[in-house]
């Protein structure tokens, strides 16, 4: 019955393929994104397959070969590529296992905080009014408390274990998720497709999960990367202060802390774990920036 043949389709399809191509090009041309993605995947791979990749048992001490320097030194021990620590443990193996701790704690923590933050943000943004007032106050309270101090205090009270550290970091880092989800939901809420869904008679859960969530995923993913880096640094800081992961587990932060007494004579012993931490967080941040650039471009 339509009297209007819509012949412009070739144009829309043409644009669609052009945009897709452009986006692929943008992703590939984004050096930060590619670097970040590669490093994060690599570290994840190392973390998963640590037992297969590590040349030595990371806990095995060899007191006769303490503080052996890495390969670029003249006095390097040929068996230990990156030398040994103050107890003669193979440094490369400990660094490989350290990736496990960092990635495990990082991902575990942002899973918890993402769940808390997104739920609060969605509810606050969608309902507004009193719900928003209450949730916004909770967010303000959380922002007002010094993270490291609270984390340390809780760990001091509850005892330091891997699970506790994950839980504490997860329960503290949800604020940015909540803030960003709330803002994004507020923007989407007033759009007419949400009103259409309401007028169709869709249930609340359908509206929140199917209509809103998929359309705010881009900013949430970007926050997730920022918070992943944040969680990894926070774990390192807690362990560095002696109230995070406990010895003899090889956390990079703990390794730094244990090594700092020896840094005057063996500077590489603080350089190596620090470089690992730096490169991993750098990669995660670059990945997040890259995702932000690429998704913003699509709009």
């Amino acid at each position, binding site marked *: 019955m339509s*009297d*209007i*043949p*819509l*012949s*412009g389709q070739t*144009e829309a399809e*043409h*644009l669609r393929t*052009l*945009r897709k191509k*452009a*986006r692929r090009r*943008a992703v590939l041309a984004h050096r930060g994104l590619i670097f970040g993605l590669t490093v994060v995947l690599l570290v994840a791979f190392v973390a998963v397959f640590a037992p297969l990749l590590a040349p030595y048992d990371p806990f095995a001490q060899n007191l006769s070969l303490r503080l052996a320097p890495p390969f670029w030194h003249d006095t390097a021990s040929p068996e230990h590529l990156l030398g040994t620590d103050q107890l003669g443990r193979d440094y490369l193996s400990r660094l490989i296992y350290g990736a496990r701790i960092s990635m495990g704690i990082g991902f575990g923590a942002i899973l918890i905080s993402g769940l808390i933050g997104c739920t609060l943000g969605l509810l606050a943004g969608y309902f507004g009014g009193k719900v928003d007032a209450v949730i916004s106050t909770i967010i303000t309270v959380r922002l007002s408390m010094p993270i490291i101090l609270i984390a340390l205090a809780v760990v001091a009270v509850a005892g330091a274990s891997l699970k506790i550290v994950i839980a504490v970091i997860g329960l503290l880092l949800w604020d940015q998720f909540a803030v960003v989800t709330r803002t994004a939901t507020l923007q989407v809420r007033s759009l007419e497709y949400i009103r259409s869904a309401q007028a169709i008679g869709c249930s609340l859960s359908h509206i929140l999960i199917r209509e809103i969530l998929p359309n705010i995923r881009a900013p949430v993913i970007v926050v997730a990367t920022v918070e992943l880096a944040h969680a990894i640094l926070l774990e390192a800081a807690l362990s560095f202060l002696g109230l995070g992961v406990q010895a003899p587990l090889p956390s990079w932060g703990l390794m730094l802390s244990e090594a700092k007494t020896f840094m005057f004579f063996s500077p590489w012993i603080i350089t190596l774990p620090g470089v690992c931490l730096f490169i991993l967080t750098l990669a995660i941040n670059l990945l997040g920036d890259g995702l932000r650039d690429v998704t913003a*471009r699509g709009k």
Partner: protein
Amino acid sequence: MTLLSVKNLRVNLRTDAGRLRAVRGVDISVERGQTLCLVGESGCGKSMAALAMLGLLPPSAEWSADEMKLDGVSLLNAGQSTLSNIRGNRVSMIFQEPMTALNPTFTIRDQLCGVYRRHKGGNRAQARERAIYLLERVGISNARNRLDQYPHELSGGLRQRVLIAMALMCEPELIICDEPTTALDVTTQAQILVLLAELREELGMGMIFITHDLGVVSRIGDHINVMYAGRVVESGTRDAVLGCASHPYTQGLLRSVPRPGVNGLQSRLGTIPGTVPSFYQADPLCPFRGRCERKLPICASQAPPVRSGAGHHSALCHNTEISSIAGNSA
């Protein structure tokens, strides 16, 4: 002498999907005391053409023209500082969105007087007198007190009036209005149109009025350029273009507007089938050929000629006769 004369203006925008050819060779000429309407649907390049004339294009844009003269002086190689001295002084521009077009953190006085003192110098009192005079002239009651208000304290209609006053602070020779009434209520729109027409008369300015609304054109335009896909497809006096439209696109547009006294049960609106062609390909042929009811075989092989009739009435089409009456044209 022609106030503003632009020949073969082209504007390209660099985008992810390639080079978007927004304006593809447009000629514009405005006389003092005359209103030229650029009319066309969204995306036809009318706003880009106007921004190019003032050097206000976004950084992603590049432009070229064979000629661009203000009062006989070429602006083709003018630097930013020359253009900046012209803008707001000899040529002013008013935009569509009154709600966001004023700086929220400065008072009306700061913004009006700033423009005056930038171009005309003078002391605070002079600038203030001029601002009050103009605010009253554009129909703002209580102008003295309004001076110290911030934009968010005014309604949309009032803000548009403030913007008009701001554009007139230095008595420009040419004013460019980019859809100045589109965001306003219909009753306010009529008031603003009358105001702009009166001011043009009073100050002897030339005016370029950009709009998508043929009804508005019929009320305020002296000369009309109908734009489609980055080109002027028909040009002529208001009476010629609206009364004896020659280009199939103009005719289609005019047929698609609901007219007073007509109900949908009695007659259907005319429509233009299809959609606008790609903006990404250089195409010297007629941009309208894919949607045209009167297309000829030649349309697919040769660029359309400019068919001219009496009194500057012309259309870019193979299959048309310009039939306007010479007596009607200015």
